[in-house]
């Protein structure tokens, strides 16, 4: 009596996971705000001191030049080319707000200042520095320098963006963990127990062994078994008595009477186990999440790392996109290898181990890699080995019990959590350090996994239409995530890793909420909002955050239904395909010099059309349209 997948779709578990995730994000947000504010109070003096030192350094240099000119006997107000010199000083030092050269009576002789920006003025606290111009021990003038204080503001902004990413990571991570835990320790044992209770209610008193999962639900199983045991004991007594009577029967009269007495019991109850009730299945696929995290940590760094090998020229974007695309191709080849290689055996495990060690080496050695060609070879090799092992591990029996969650979590780990962690790591220890860490983690997590690989199994997809729309949305959304990774890493700002982590966090938050909400009909609306936000004529990060949230929401809403019957391999393949398409579309957009909002909208139109048609289609099927 296999139990239904429906048990895993418990709304209450969704709610519990969402509430816990929200609370953890809230606590991290509040505590983090306190920590960052406290730190900012400490750092303000240091940053002001460093800004003043910079101002002093520039002031001394300007004063030295002026002193030199005055030494030639040129009067203060007739110094040659001072405005051009000051303009050059301002150009090479973006921190400067104004430079003034004044005489001994502090009358401003030369002044150059940046155009006032009301937004900047509201946030920055300017720092003023004065340096005397000395000649023969006499003060003949002074250089007055005003620095914007932008650095202090940008450090504070950096910290708040990190706080945002940390809160999203903590909240989403805990939510995913709790939902996964509820599947393993609640939903599956509950499904097992509900099946045994239903059998019990129908009159079956077999000894349904308790699921091995450690779960609070198994208490019911224990109590039920305590109640069933005396019934089975009585049934045995009745059976022995009936046999005894039959054994002394001579003419069949007693047997007839015994059969009549037991007729009701026989028709109503059974005391043997009718069919095999599926035992709990430990599924090693969840462990593959760790390998996905380790393997995708470097995704947001690949584009920028490759682009930096060729410098700031027209090839940089193409090389960045090519590196990301080659990673996606490597992953897809890994999937193909796992699907084609249907045999298990110890040799397969050895090959997996070798592949994982190669991937770990290729990723870790990037720490000391400075040339483009070996990097372009290393990325697909690493991706191939990681995904080959991931796809082989998730083939293990038990995945169908965990649908649709396992597929959604695998994609979320690869497209949101891994890149988010990688971005934060790069922010802390740098890009090369992140590659090294990723390589070490691939070896540590991937090597034991190689011994859990399973031969490929075909899983029947029952609702093909829903699967297709889910895959389409996944591909399109992963394409967008790929673009975020590519643009965030290679084009927008090569060092904005914290910002990139927050982008991915918002995409993931939308995705998770969509998964839990399970309202596919709302997906088109969510996409329309995302497109609208990108089209708004204020290209600020806040709108991009919101747009990515709604994009993730649409993806989650659609997948929550579409992926119930999809296999992990297919779902991940769609996501990898998206990763291949994303940078290529971005590259096309760069080549055609299309505006950002236009090409992102064009990309979003694809899932919008798919969502609208599928929603209308499902309503028509249900007699609503």
């Amino acid at each position: 009596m296999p139990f239904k997948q429906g048990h895993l779709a418990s709304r209450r578990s969704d709610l519990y996971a969402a509430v816990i995730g929200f609370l953890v994000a809230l606590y991290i947000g509040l505590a983090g705000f306190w920590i960052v504010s406290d730190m900012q109070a400490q750092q303000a003096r240091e940053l002001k001191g460093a800004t003043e030192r910079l101002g002093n350094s520039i002031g001394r240099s300007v004063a030295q030049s002026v002193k030199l000119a005055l030494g030639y006997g040129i009067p203060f107000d007739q110094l040659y080319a001072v405005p051009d010199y000051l303009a050059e000083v301002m150009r090479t030092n973006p921190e400067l707000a104004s430079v003034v050269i004044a005489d001994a009576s502090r009358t401003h002789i030369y002044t150059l200042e940046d155009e006032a920006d009301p937004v900047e003025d509201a946030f920055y606290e300017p720092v003023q520095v004065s340096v005397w111009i000395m000649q023969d021990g006499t003060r003949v003038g002074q250089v007055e320098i005003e620095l914007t204080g932008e650095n202090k503001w940008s450090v504070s902004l950096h910290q708040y963006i990190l706080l945002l990413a940390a809160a999203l990571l903590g909240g989403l991570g805990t939510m995913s963990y709790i939902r996964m835990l509820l599947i393993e320790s609640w939903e599956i044992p509950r499904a097992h127990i509900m099946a045994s209770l239903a059998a019990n209610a129908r009159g079956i008193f077999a000894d349904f062994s308790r699921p091995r999962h450690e779960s609070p639900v198994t208490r019911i199983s224990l109590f039920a078994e305590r109640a069933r045991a005396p019934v089975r004991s009585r049934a045995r007594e009745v059976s022995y008595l009936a046999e005894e009577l039959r054994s002394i029967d001579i003419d069949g009269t007693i047997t007839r009477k015994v059969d009549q007495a037991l007729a009701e019991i026989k028709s109503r109850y059974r005391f043997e186990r009718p069919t095999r009730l599926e035992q709990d299945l430990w599924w090693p696929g969840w462990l593959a999440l760790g390998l996905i995290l380790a393997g995708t940590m470097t995704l947001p760094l690949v584009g920028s790392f490759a682009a930096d090998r060729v410098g700031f020229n027209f090839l940089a974007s193409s090389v960045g996109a090519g590196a990301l695309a080659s990673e996606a191709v490597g992953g897809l080849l890994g999937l193909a290898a796992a699907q084609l290689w249907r045999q298990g055996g110890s040799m397969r495990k050895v090959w997996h181990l070798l592949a994982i060690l190669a991937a770990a080496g290729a990723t870790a050695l990037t720490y000391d890699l400075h040339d483009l060609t070996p990097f372009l070879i290393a990325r697909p090799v690493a991706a191939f080995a990681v995904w080959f092992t991931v796809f082989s591990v998730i083939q293990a029996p038990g995945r169908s019990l965990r649908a649709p969650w396992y597929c959604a979590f695998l994609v979320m780990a690869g497209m949101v959590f891994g890149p988010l962690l990688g971005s934060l790591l790069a922010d802390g220890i740098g890009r090369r350090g992140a590659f090294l860490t990723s390589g070490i983690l691939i070896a540590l997590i991937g090597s034991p996994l190689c011994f859990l690989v399973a031969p490929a199994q075909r899983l029947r997809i029952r609702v093909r239409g829903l699967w297709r729309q889910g895959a389409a949305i996944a591909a399109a959304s992963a394409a967008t995530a790929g673009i975020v990774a590519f643009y965030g890493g290679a084009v927008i700002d090569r060092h904005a890793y914290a910002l990139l982590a927050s982008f991915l966090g918002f995409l993931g938050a939308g995705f998770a909420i969509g998964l839990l909400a399970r309202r596919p009909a709302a997906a088109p609306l969510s996409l329309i909002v995302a497109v609208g936000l990108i089209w708004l004529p204020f290209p600020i990060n806040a709108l991009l955050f919101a747009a990515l949230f709604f994009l993730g929401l649409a993806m989650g809403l659609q997948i929550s239904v579409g992926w119930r019957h999809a296999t992990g391999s297919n779902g991940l393949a769609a996501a990898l395909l998206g990763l291949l398409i994303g940078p290529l579309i971005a590259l096309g957009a760069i080549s055609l010099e299309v505006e950002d909002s236009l090409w992102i909208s064009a990309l979003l139109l694809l899932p919008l059309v798919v969502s609208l048609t599928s929603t209308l289609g499902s309503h028509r099927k249900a007699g609503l349209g």
Partner: protein
Amino acid sequence: MVFAIRIGLIAGAVAFLVLSGLSILSGNAVKQGLQELEIARYRYLVASLKATVEANLSLGLPIQDLPVLQSKIERDRSDEANVRAIEIVGPNDTALYSTDRGAIGDRIPAAWRQAIDDHHRSTWVAYDRGEVAIGEAIENDFGQEIGNVVLVIAEDQVIPPSALTFGLASKGWAAILVASLLTVLSVTLVLLNRRRAIGRAAAIWKGAWSDERGPLKTAKPEPLGPSMETASRNARNTTEQAAADLDRAKRRLMDIDDAV
């Protein structure tokens, strides 16, 4: 209870780790900000030196034949107490002029070459053996790179002491601990609430739920099946019914036995 507390502790550990990571990254952001400001200070010096060198080059003299640069860098070095050395590197990666005269003719460290290659003619920074080198490419009138101007500073002049940037005040640690404890408490309470359904179902099996305590509160059915409480009640009813039926059957069999 143990299950809920254990999961609560794991969630609390997640919150603790994330917040600790945040404070490290946040401290690192300050460190980067301070470092950028310090480097900007020396970058300005490098830029003015580069301008001087390029102005001399525009006179048409090769870089090797500009001894005036040696006195210029020595003068600048004496103005900046924090600068350990100033070097002007030629096209074949050897120092042509240096305030450390013994280094003239030496090849530059590999870390400098790597930083030059990685930064493509913008200001580059290399960290090597406790020193920070800040440099910029020198270009001739045709835009060709013919060398680099390099300032060498002690690392502690550029990188702030870690105690300043990584140190978390006691208030910060208190916030981390409070948030972690709140997480443990909230997750445990939420999961304990989930156990109520089990308690009701378990009560049915234990027979502890009597009619005197009022009718059983009907749990909301799960969307895809009956609640555990309903299933338990149905199963228990059948179990009791089966026990009674078996007793009756046994009595009938014993009657047959007596009759025989």
